């Protein structure tokens, strides 16, 4: 589904991703861990098409298409979803109106007619229940005045509504209380299928107890320096990242 080869990207001429490789197949869940500033959010942003990152090398294909050739909105419409580490507030724009607009854009891209009001409402209800998203929140303006945890939960609610092929969750677990973490995880597990895939960016092994990944990768200084199964996460929790420094590219120690 997603194939990243030797991806290099920089911001303001500073190279942040330094030749990154990753393969994600349908039905898989990948976790990406790594120290602060290692480039995890950068990877997510580059995949989603954020403008101020310059891709300087490598290839990324998504469902066989060259992802880097697509506009951010087309990537989203084609089924790539990013749950943001820091979701923004958009005052006055109702969550519902926004979601409906987003949904219809995705549908139009796939040659489907706009969703019918009744069907939309039915889906809202169903998905709200799935992630236990308060309908009072669903009816408010987009993230306006939401608490940190509420914003995160709204991201997952949107994910549930839009049913993307590939979801990237950037530290969705940070800021969630224990119950919320459980609810969100349960929601994600229910959404998992043989047809979609997830990339979980996280600092905490706890999330991976709830959503069990097929693979765990360590992103360090702009590269994936180690990959393994969920046991790797436990090892990281115990030992930290220092022991992996040897496998990092030499350039980083200049």
């Amino acid at each position, binding site marked *: 589904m997603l194939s990243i080869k030797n991806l290099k990207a920089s911001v303001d001429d500073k190279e942040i991703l330094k030749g990154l490789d990753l393969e994600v197949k349908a039905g898989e869940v990948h976790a990406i861990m790594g120290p602060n500033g290692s480039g995890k959010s950068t990877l997510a942003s580059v995949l989603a098409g954020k*403008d101020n990152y310059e891709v300087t090398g490598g290839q990324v294909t998504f469902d066989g298409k060259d992802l880097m050739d697509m506009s951010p909105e087309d990537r989203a419409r084609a089924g790539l979803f990013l749950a943001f580490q820091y979701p923004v507030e958009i005052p006055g724009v109702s969550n519902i109106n*926004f979601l409906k607009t*987003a949904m219809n854009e995705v549908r139009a891209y796939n040659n489907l007619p706009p969703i019918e009001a009744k069907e939309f409402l039915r889906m809202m209800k169903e998905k709200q229940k799935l992630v236990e998203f308060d309908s009072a929140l669903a009816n408010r303006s987009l993230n306006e005045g939401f608490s940190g945890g509420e914003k995160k939960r709204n991201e997952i609610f949107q994910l549930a509504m839009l049913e993307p092929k590939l979801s990237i969750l950037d530290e969705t677990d940070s800021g969630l209380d224990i119950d919320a973490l459980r609810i969100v995880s349960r929601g994600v597990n229910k959404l998992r299928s043989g047809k979609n895939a997830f990339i979980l960016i996280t600092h905490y092994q706890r999330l991976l107890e709830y959503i069990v990944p097929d693979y765990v990768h360590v992103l360090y200084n702009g590269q994936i320096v180690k990959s393994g199964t969920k046991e790797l996460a436990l090892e990281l929790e115990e030992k930290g990242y220092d022991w992996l420094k040897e496998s990092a590219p030499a350039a980083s120690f200049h």
Partner: protein
Amino acid sequence: MSTDLDILKDVSTEEYKYGFTTDIEMEIAPVGLNEDIVRYISQKKNEPEWMLEYRLKALRHFLKLEMPTWQNFELPPIDFQAISYYAAPKKQVKLNSLDEVDPELLATFEKLGIPLSEQKLLSGVAVDAVFDSVSVATTFKEKLKEVGVIFCSFSDAVREHPELVQKYLGSVVPYTDNIFSALNAAVVSDGSFVYIPKGVRCPMELSTYFRINAQNTGQFERTLIIADEGSYVSYLEGCTAPMRDENQLHAAVVELIAMENAEIKYSTVQNWYPGDKDGKGGIYNFVTKRGICKGDNSKISWTQVETGSSITWKYPSVILKGDNSTGEFYSVALTKNKQIADTGTKMYHIGKNTRSRIISKGISAGEGQNSYRGLVQIGNSAENARNFTQCDSLLIGDQCGAHTFPYIESKNNSSMIEHEATTSKIGEDQIFYLNQRGIDTEKAVALIVNGYAKEVLNQLPMEFAVEAQKLLAISLEGSVG
């Protein structure tokens, strides 16, 4: 790949949708402004002597006045002698049925989304359609008459309801008020007249649609709305003009009178031709709008969505004379390219326990300049007056400007005046967030802007709120990428 900021800077202009002209045989007064022209207009309109006298007094006063200089923009010189002050379609019979209206005119209004033919009337909305200097049709007149509501063109009112017009014309905005009110009084073209009798809740929305078509003319309409004791009316005006290279003047006067326990809700969706992207052409929209809450417990509410005109210069105001009366002003003003808006309101608190509320939302894109100018005046006698002002500016790109000039004059210590102001930009992060959900940048900006303006748009009658939302989105097309 360009950044979002570059995209925001990259200003171009979307074609103005209403820029077509109607080819119809017109009767046009020779250019120039003098007593003969005023007599000519008055005679064309078959006016009684008193109206001619009123016009002539106003003209004599106008000729003594000079242009003001306090505005926050460079006012290009206007040659008042180079304008024609009367233009009307030639085929003009007194119409008893709408289907007698010149098909060309019906087609014009149809194209503007204002169906006037009997079969297609907008249900629940009565329309007065003004084409250049004359009203061409007023719908639902008879139906309104059944409940005693008078809704007709201003010219008809002068002839058919002289006692009401004489009593109220100039009572809120005298011709001596300012140079444009003097000009308007001298050359009034047409406009709407509304009278709601005691205790009547007007059963439908009333609206006037103004269209400038002829070249080298201006529009000088007069609107007079009187809501008698305990009555209610909601009125809406809309306007468009063809795309022309020269600037055209629109100098209207609107007077509202609310008696005891009466309420007038006045909404404007202003979409005059704004000029091209280099600032060539467009309407000068210099309008004086004022209402008086004459009786106790009365209420006047102005809502305006201003997207058109090359220069908009107006301050819909309320004189709060009756005790416990309320004045409201809700405004969205959008300027792009080289458009200028200097707009706001004045709230004069005279009665006890009077309330005013001002919500102004400026949106500037391209090289647009947007000024909020407001006055809250609390008189000696206005015990316990309250004002709340919220004045927000939204900037799109970094070549536009937003300015606020809030003036407060209070002569009564018991008054409470609150003022809040914010300036914000549309964030790249907001746009990216929406992009990431499949919404392109243009739609994203429209969504953000409509969210920002929501408090004002919510004040509009339902049918028009949707239109206004679309209009904001269309007006911003091409301003972003």
